[in-house]
């Protein structure tokens, strides 16, 4: 087991550089019991992921079960520090925070919104107490100041403090609870918010409410966030840029419009065509994936997607595809990106 490779403090950046988060070649592995009685197996959950998030930008990380997106989120949060690589948060005011060190002064640079809002709120705490917790930690000792601030933030997420602040989580609907969780994440003005599947557990009509709320907050606060999702549809309206992840590696990273209209990676294209068509439109021309996702215990050689890829060649098994910037801002890790006729066919659907 290797320790985090870098322990030096990164030089503070100037405020003019708008990068908030740098994720550089992050690797996360876990030891699990294996069929061999005395040996443990290594799960390669995240295998060298790099991305940056700029101030005021929402970057989506989309992947299916086992893609490593949640592991990546936990590494960024610092809940489970990465085994290798650099995660640097450039805080407002020039301070930097490395590899998720939580305890340094003012460690509240990153806040998280979880998938299940009821699990994210202590069932025995009132809304007021939960939302005010980060303020207490930040040293806001005056209770009246905290109440004022909680009232403001609850208003911002569309809840009246007078009606909701003294409730306990079980007196809230799913949508209201998720609004409270968002309020808690925003109350201390974090540099970055991790939105981990924020609408997956909610009803359709409520999903749209939360998406719209986040969209409004993005406009009003210049919200900087990483949005984790398994569903491309949710990402469409919120994300400025979208990264697609498969089996621990990034496949593609591009402005969201490009991902939807000109996917370059065959996996991205397959994900897009799997979404049910817009109501009233004919079914999409599907790209069928072969077989099942391989186990992260024993990932395929070369390109990790090759075992399911409809256009895989011998080269894909032999060489790990390079992370290339094919067009400005459009990165892809594929030996045979869909730049030619295939891309056109997919785009036209």
């Amino acid at each position, binding site marked *: 087991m290797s320790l985090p490779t870098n322990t030096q403090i990164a030089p503070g950046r100037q405020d003019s550089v708008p990068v908030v988060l740098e994720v550089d070649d992050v690797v996360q592995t876990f030891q699990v019991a294996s069929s061999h009685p005395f040996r443990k197996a290594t799960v390669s959950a995240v295998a060298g992921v790099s991305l940056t998030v700029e101030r005021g930008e929402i970057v989506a990380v989309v992947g*299916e079960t086992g893609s490593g997106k949640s592991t990546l989120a936990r590494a960024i949060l610092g809940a489970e520090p990465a085994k290798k690589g650099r995660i640097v948060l450039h805080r407002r005011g020039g301070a930097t925070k490395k590899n998720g060190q939580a305890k340094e002064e003012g460690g509240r640079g990153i806040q998280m919104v979880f998938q299940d809002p009821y699990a994210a709120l202590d069932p025995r705490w009132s809304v007021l107490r939960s939302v005010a917790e980060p303020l207490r930690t930040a040293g806001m000792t005056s209770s009246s100041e905290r109440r004022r601030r909680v009232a403001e933030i609850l208003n911002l997420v569309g809840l009246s403090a007078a009606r909701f602040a003294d409730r306990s989580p079980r007196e809230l609907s799913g949508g209201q609870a998720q609004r409270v969780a968002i309020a808690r994440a925003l109350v201390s003005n974090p540099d970055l918010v991790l939105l981990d599947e924020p609408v997956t557990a909610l009803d*359709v*009509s409520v999903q749209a409410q939360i998406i*719209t709320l986040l969209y409004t907050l993005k406009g009003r606060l210049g919200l900087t966030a990483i949005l984790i999702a398994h569903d491309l549809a949710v990402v*469409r*309206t919120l994300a400025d840029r979208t990264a697609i992840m498969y089996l621990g590696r990034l496949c593609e990273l591009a402005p969201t419009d490009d991902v939807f209209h000109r996917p370059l990676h065959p996996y991205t294209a397959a994900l*897009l065509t799997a979404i049910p068509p817009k109501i009233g439109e004919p*079914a999409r021309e599907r790209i069928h994936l072969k077989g099942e996702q391989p186990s992260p215990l024993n990932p395929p050689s070369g390109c990790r997607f090759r075992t399911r890829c409809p256009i895989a060649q011998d080269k894909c098994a032999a060489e790990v595809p390079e992370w290339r910037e094919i067009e400005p801002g459009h990165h892809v890790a594929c030996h045979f990106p869909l730049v030619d006729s295939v891309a056109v066919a997919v785009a036209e659907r």
Partner: protein
Amino acid sequence: MSDQSQPIVKPQPIVEVEDLWVWLRKRGREIPLVRGLSYTLRPAEALSIVGESGAGKSIGVRAALGLLDPRLFRVTGSSKLVGTDVLALTAKERARYVPSVAALVFQDPGRSLNPTMRVGDQIAEAFLKGSGYEPGMTRAKAEARALQLMKDVRIAAAEERFKAYPNQLSGGMKQRVVIAIAVACKPQVLFCDEPTSSLDVTTQAAIMDLIGELRDQTGIATVTITHDLALAASRARKVIVMYGGQVVEALPARLVATESAMPYTTALIEAVPDIDGNGTPPTPIEGMPPDPANLPSGCSFHPRCRFAQDDCLTNTPELRVVAPAHELRCFHPVKDLELQEASR
């Protein structure tokens, strides 16, 4: 059941649910969860029941199959499966009859499977002990059939997977095994309760493909419960939209985009994020689904309805036929409002 031997011109309905009501008994009160649900299904038909949590769609299906505990729920109405009203049967008769004609697939495949048993054996058990039993069935024959069934539901490397335990399979694989068990007894109707909600997008599409193939090949009728109107409209022939325990609109799936007129249905369409669009956010439906213990007066949807007028608060709309195969529970359908706007 004897109907089947009679010569028939139009296929007899497989499912006829008539005015089904379900009440939850709670602390001496009876809370209405399903209020007068009716639908008919013929062979090879695909019906989708759409609604949010608490709309009564899952409870309605469980009631129709006679699966609800009578100590907790009171059920009235009738639910004929292949001509026999299962609600009129005794519990014992029902336990024998229902599995022979209908099967139910749940949302979470992990919970439907026995974690301590190999999946192949679980499928084979349906032939040995379940209602798929036939005289002269042996272990070897049952296993051969189970293996064939695993191939039928497109489980790759079926011979290998036959000996696997559920935890060694992915979510999509497990759901395929559950479907294999469900269709092992050759039921005439397959009820799927959110069959793909816990699965990934690509897996969801593949499972829905599989259900469609089974329908085409075996003529089984399917009822799919989902909260996703887009999925329902793209995969079913007929769509029923439920709200607050009632059917608020029922129409052919291909007409959902153009003809749906109940404000709840149109609002649901607008609430789905548009991935082909330019990134404008979906239009949410404000407010929350109603509490069955405390239903609003008049139309259950009026507190959230953009078009609600005074009569929606005081009068309760009935389900009425507005066009062939199109039923609606609304005083002021969206289409009428548009016509009024246009004529002005």
